[in-house]
């Protein structure tokens, strides 16, 4: 009993330590700058206002509202494209017997180990040469390409938990491969697709590095690129910065909240029960 109590205390302590910075961010974002000079933990005076959020959203040099809109323009296709292509590739790797398919799969998996920094310069040159520098299309393509290896690995593992007899039954029922994929496999893969979607959307949304290399027109900057620009000229404007962070992180948090019903099932795999 004391042992369990001890474990609970430690768990709560770790949880609180993790939570403190986040509490700080929330507190800073909701209070005017003058109350934060001596630290957010100083509770008097205590004024609540949404001014920081409004200011970050409409900031004169880097409006976050526009940044979030730009992020959505990039992230939505950068999630749908790799998911659709990845699902087809994963299904192909799993069900079609093609020579060297295992070798090919291994190569794809190995691609996951390449660090982004390594390809930054060649990627920049390549995008410049094909005329996709400073375009959303270029960033969408890079995100999609970057996501494909793990999406394929993830969905292949998920699809391998689907019983093959269901597909065989469909083929005897008169379905061709594409009909089996769209009418049987995809509907049964919703949990797996939802998990992959949540992960990819978060990853693409949180990306700073790729966007930094490929987008530089001030009007095109995505949300993550704008946060550092909100720092203020003569002093760090903590209120606006933290409000911008909260606004930016709200999207992935919302996605996880909406998809979490599928998320666990997607990681566990498929079952009839």
């Amino acid at each position, binding site marked *: 009993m004391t042992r369990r109590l001890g474990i609970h205390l430690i768990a709560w302590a770790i949880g609180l330590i993790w939570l403190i910075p986040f509490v700080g961010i929330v507190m800073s974002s909701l209070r005017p700058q003058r109350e934060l000079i001596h630290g957010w933990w100083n509770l008097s005076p205590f004024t609540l206002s949404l001014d920081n959020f409004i200011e970050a959203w409409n900031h004169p040099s880097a409006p976050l509202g526009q940044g979030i809109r730009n992020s959505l323009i990039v992230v939505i296709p950068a999630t749908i494209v790799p998911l659709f292509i990845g699902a087809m590739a994963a299904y192909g790797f799993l069900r079609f017997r093609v020579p060297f398919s295992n070798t090919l799969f291994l190569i794809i998996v190995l691609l996951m180990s390449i660090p982004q920094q390594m390809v930054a310069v060649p990627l920049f040159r390549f995008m410049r040469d094909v005329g996709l520098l400073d375009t959303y299309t270029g960033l969408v393509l890079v995100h999609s390409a970057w996501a494909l290896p793990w999406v394929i690995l993830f969905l292949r593992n998920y699809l391998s938990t689907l019983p093959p007899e269901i597909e065989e*039954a469909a083929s005897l029922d008169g379905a061709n491969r594409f009909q089996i994929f769209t*009418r049987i496999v995809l509907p049964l893969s919703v949990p797996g697709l939802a998990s992959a979607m949540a992960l990819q959307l978060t990853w693409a949304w949180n990306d700073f590095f790729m966007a930094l290399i490929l987008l530089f027109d001030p009007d095109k900057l995505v949300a993550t690129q704008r946060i550092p620009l909100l720092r203020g000229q003569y002093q760090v404007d903590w209120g606006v910065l933290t409000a911008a962070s909260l606004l930016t992180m709200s999207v992935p948090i919302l996605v996880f909240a909406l998809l979490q019903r599928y998320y666990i099932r997607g990681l566990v795999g498929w079952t009839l029960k």
Partner: protein
Amino acid sequence: MASVTFENVTKRFGDVVAVNDLSLHVEDGEFLVFVGPSGCGKTTTLRLLAGLEELTSGNIYIGDRLVNDIPPKDRDIAMVFQSYALYPHMSVYDNMAFGLRLRKVPKDEIDRRVREAARMLGIEQLLDRKPKQLSGGQRQRVAVGRAIVRNPKVFLFDEPLSNLDAKLRVQTRAELSKLHKRLGTTFIYVTHDQVEAMTMATRIVVMRDGVLQQVDTPQNLYERPGNIFVAGFIGSPSMNFFDATLVEADGKLYVDSSSFRLEIPPRLAEQYRKYKGREVIFGIRPEDIHAKPYVPPEISPAELRATVDVVELMGSEIFLYCLTADNKSFIARVDPRIRARSGDTVELVINMDHMHLFDPQTEKRLE
């Protein structure tokens, strides 16, 4: 409706020969059951016919049409899987309608056929449910229903009863037989359970290690098994086998083993006299061994004394696990009124009219 022909069909998985040079003709409207122990190639044979596996060599015909290179969807056959393989995201209705929709059957025609099949199988009240809301028996019916609505040329069943409990299995067995009579379509059925095979089949195919052992009606298979494997596989408990020699004395022919000598009835003696002096394997089914006070009339009796090892009371009968004088074990299925106990010596009577002889080398039946 169609016949099915296998012509020198072979299937290899790497070095493993799953089906070895199988040739077989299935008549239109037959209820053919493939039976054999697991790994004997019966399911592979069914999957080859369905087009779910590719042939290594040989030909398969459905009716007159060579189907070797025809994909499963165009073979016009329906299959009931062991796991039922229902589409989990569709209702029972949609499960049954799926194949018809793909074939662009008009909507009202689909509705009519689905409801008719559902009525036939007694699952009308389940049409809106999802598979996971059904019991095992109900899922099995939906799987059968999905096959029926398509009105295919051939029905394939891959151990469809093995996931049901014993009582339901017996009931479903009878229903499948009825369904076959009603539809009149060719049924090809795979099972490892020889009771299912015996009760439903018009003909049984016994397979072992990918090789066809014997094809015949259940009655013939039981009465005249072609080799030791078939003799041991069909019938429960299994047939007893003894090493023996055929000897002649005073004009009579005997099966002579080290611990007993049994007279062969005159009718059979004529037929077997040519094997006189040869070593044979003598086979006798447990149900052809009777306890002495309860011997049925009009048999050719031969007496045998044995020691009881284990007694299994089944209610309507008793299985006696016995030992001969030289410690050969065998089973007798006798009248329950005999109050034998472990360690007792019992007088048994063998019905020699139902004896079987096999060649010890080839394991084939001696005629």
